[in-house]
């Protein structure tokens, strides 16, 4: 099957060869000698000609194709589904019943293979006719379709109404039996081409509508911040970070992509002896900046050790490891954390308030990824509000800032056509492979790019 509707020479491809097969069968069903026996069916006060029962259809199929009951019912069902046969009693229920319920053959005009496009205009005319005949006759989904069509093809609505009236007038001039038959055929056709919304669909739409309404209610109750405050914060952020943005203000000694000189990366690597001034300044922007930089984290740890509160940072790191680590290892990691940091009399006991401690210990009975979240949050904010500001005022930080390097700007090569050699760097994959062999953690990434070939 393909989505191309045109064949190689631009001719419309035949869709669904199964339709041709079905039609051949339908024609043979209507054969006057070998086909199904048709009779007149009484429906209330009217007599419908050329009707058959469901049982007739099934029996004929069994005889013709030499198949079982079940299969015949299944095949017959397909004929009804695709609109070649329609039921008289419950037109909306397009199923085949192997009993005495009546069915009729659909006129070839309405067959699927004629590819008579079931256009919106036609459907609108059909619904308008129904509406005009008796107000309120349209059922729920038809009403919706009617309204939607009214909106969509509003510009042709006069035409639609006029057509509907004309068709109704013309049909009044027919014999009653014919009229009923034609109405049945049309109704069956539209049931196939515009299937009614199923109860399940209704349930689904109501479900989604309810969730949307709930969501909107919660959103209404949200606390919002004034725009002026939010927008000011962007201005401040951009100002603060501008010296650090190489695209805005260049970087020292030089941008490696321009000068082919990787000094910039070397000087800012994890393992450098003395950091650059910009880097150390950046740690003062926010606690997250300090923690995100491995060197900053190490410096902070040194400071905390002096303050005898290093266990806070270690605890925080261990919690991060639990949260982002392998699912399988969570229980043992959580256990480790408990032994080291939370158990009474633990070697590196962290100071959490009793309520959080209780909640955490309760959760430890069934350890999951987020069981340490509350405790971690508590310690994080403790460090942020207390230790971090003091660190920034400490001698340790100030000294480092004073000693930090401001790199010299590397002038671009005098001869712009002489390209510097571009050295490759060891892949992080290699670095961690060796690190793994040494049994170290997977978080380092080195880019000490000295000339080394891969």
């Amino acid at each position, binding site marked *: 099957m393909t989505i191309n509707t045109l064949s190689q020479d631009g001719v419309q491809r035949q869709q669904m060869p199964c339709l041709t097969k079905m039609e051949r069968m339908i024609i043979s069903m209507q054969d006057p000698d070998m086909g199904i026996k048709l009779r007149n069916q009484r429906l209330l006060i009217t007599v419908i000609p050329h009707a058959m029962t469901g049982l007739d259809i099934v029996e004929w199929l069994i005889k013709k194709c030499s198949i079982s009951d079940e299969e015949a019912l299944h095949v017959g069902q397909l004929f009804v589904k695709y609109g070649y046969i329609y039921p008289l009693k419950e*037109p909306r229920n397009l199923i085949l019943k192997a009993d005495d319920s009546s069915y009729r053959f659909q006129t070839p005009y309405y067959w699927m293979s004629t590819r008579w496009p079931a256009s919106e205009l036609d459907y609108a005319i059909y619904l308008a006719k129904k509406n005009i005949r008796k107000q309120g006759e349209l059922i729920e989904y038809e009403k919706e379709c009617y309204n939607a069509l009214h909106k969509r093809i509003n510009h042709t609505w006069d035409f639609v109404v006029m057509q509907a009236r004309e068709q109704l007038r013309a049909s009044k001039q027919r014999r009653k039996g014919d009229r009923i038959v034609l109405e049945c055929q049309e109704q069956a056709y539209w049931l196939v081409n515009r299937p009614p919304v199923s109860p399940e669909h209704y*349930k689904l739409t109501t479900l989604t*509508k309810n969730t949307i309404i709930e969501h909107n209610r919660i959103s209404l109750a949200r606390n919002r911040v004034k725009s002026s405050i939010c927008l000011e914060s*962007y201005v401040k952020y951009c100002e603060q970070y501008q010296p650090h943005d190489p*695209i*805005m203000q260049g970087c020292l000694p030089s941008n490696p992509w321009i000068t082919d000189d990787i000094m910039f990366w070397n000087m800012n690597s994890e393992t450098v002896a003395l950091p650059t001034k910009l880097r150390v300044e950046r740690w003062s922007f926010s606690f997250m900046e300090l923690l995100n930089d491995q060197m900053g984290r190490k410096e902070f740890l040194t400071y905390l050790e002096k303050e005898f509160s290093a266990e806070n940072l270690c605890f925080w790191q261990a919690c991060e490891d639990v949260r982002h680590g392998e699912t399988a290892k969570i229980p043992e990691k959580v256990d480790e954390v408990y032994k080291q940091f939370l158990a009474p009399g633990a070697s590196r006991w962290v100071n959490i308030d009793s309520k959080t401690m209780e909640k955490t210990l309760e959760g430890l009975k069934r350890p999951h990824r987020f069981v340490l979240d509350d405790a971690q949050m508590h310690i994080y904010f403790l460090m942020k509000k207390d230790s971090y500001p003091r660190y920034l005022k400490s001698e340790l930080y100030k000294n480092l800032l004073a000693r930090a390097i401001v790199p010299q700007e590397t002038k671009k090569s005098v001869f712009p056509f002489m390209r510097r050699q571009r050295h490759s760097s060891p892949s992080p994959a290699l670095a961690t492979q060796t690190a793994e062999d040494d049994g170290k953690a997977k978080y380092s990434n080195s880019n000490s790019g000295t000339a080394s070939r891969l």
Partner: protein
Amino acid sequence: MCDQTFLAITFGPCDNCSQNKPLMNIYLKNEPINYCSLCVELMACQGLAKGETIHTLKAESETLKTKLEEERAKLHDVELHQVAEKIEALGQFVMKTRRTLKGHGNKVLCVDWCRDKRRIVSSSQDGKVIVWDAYTTNKEHAVTMPCTWVMACAYAPSGCAVACGGLDNKCSVYPLSLDKNENLAAKKKSVAMHTNYLSSCSFTNSDMQILTSSGDGTCALWDVESGQLLQSFHGHSADVLSLNLAPSETGNTFVSGGCDKKANVWDMRSGQNVQSFETHESDINSVKYYPSGDAFATGSDDATCRLYDLRADREVAIYSKESIIFGASSVDFSLSGRLLFAGYNDYTINVWDVLKGTRVAILFGHENRVSTVRVSPDGTAFCSGSWDNTFDLRNILYGFALYWHQGLYIGVLHHPVMSVP
């Protein structure tokens, strides 16, 4: 004369409402019952409370929406460009292509930087995923996926693995091995399984978890080792095209954008949709957080990029121009957040001043749609991938005007520009 005569076979008391009405024969669990047509419809509309219909629910939904918009508008006391009036305008920006990475045989669909600031992984329509050292332009690894249209690729934080996926509805993780003889495909781990194409993937803070978004309308969080689904996120009513993790302190949220014109913010822990924004007029192709984590930008098929603030809970800026007609496929911020790079389907890249809302530069040079734009982790350069098979690494030189080059010719001319303090 009407069809009712066919539907009404009998006339009598309805089994449900006991009123004398024309009855329909219907079958409930193979039991024939006689309900009047009204009761049949009511039954079909189960799930609605008394007095409700689809229409009333819709109406309620609409009124809530309008109320929400009113609430949001109440605290909106100033526009972004007004606040930005006091800032210096940016001068002329011009660009030069620094590296051109040629090697994909077909459209480049996605690109991601490694944390070492120089390596890149890229994926393309022909199923190839290539890891480059962009600095030397060497190809370091190449994998051929069993499917075409690899729409998503991501580099692991440690640099030891890459994740990719696309029309195969899966996300696979390939550990990068330096053994030349080893076939990378052998060690592949199939992590995510969706019921439709994978549009975007991203590692969280470690190599162990992956966040994916898919054409089936959901996002999901997976454990890499076991392939287990940790959390799924439902709320989009159409394909989800893009996602981005928040750089926040608690690291618990992410934003996703989809074909239902909505951008949703999710809590990774609970799977709840925390905030939702629906002001775009067409599919949202790309979402990216502002570096501070308080806002995010989106690029959409309606040819605009918008900035949404999470605390103010509203859209705060639109980046659009009459001359920009084609949709934006990808957005990214510079390190300070002052610049927004957006790649468009009309083969150009527009650079916006985030604060002032003006466009500072337009970059030509690609010969087909720009599918992805990514700034390097340290902000020194950004790379763009396009459907013309190449992707270029660019760096913005402040103060020099240069000819646009496409591999063959290079011209340099100096252009006097106002200096910046």
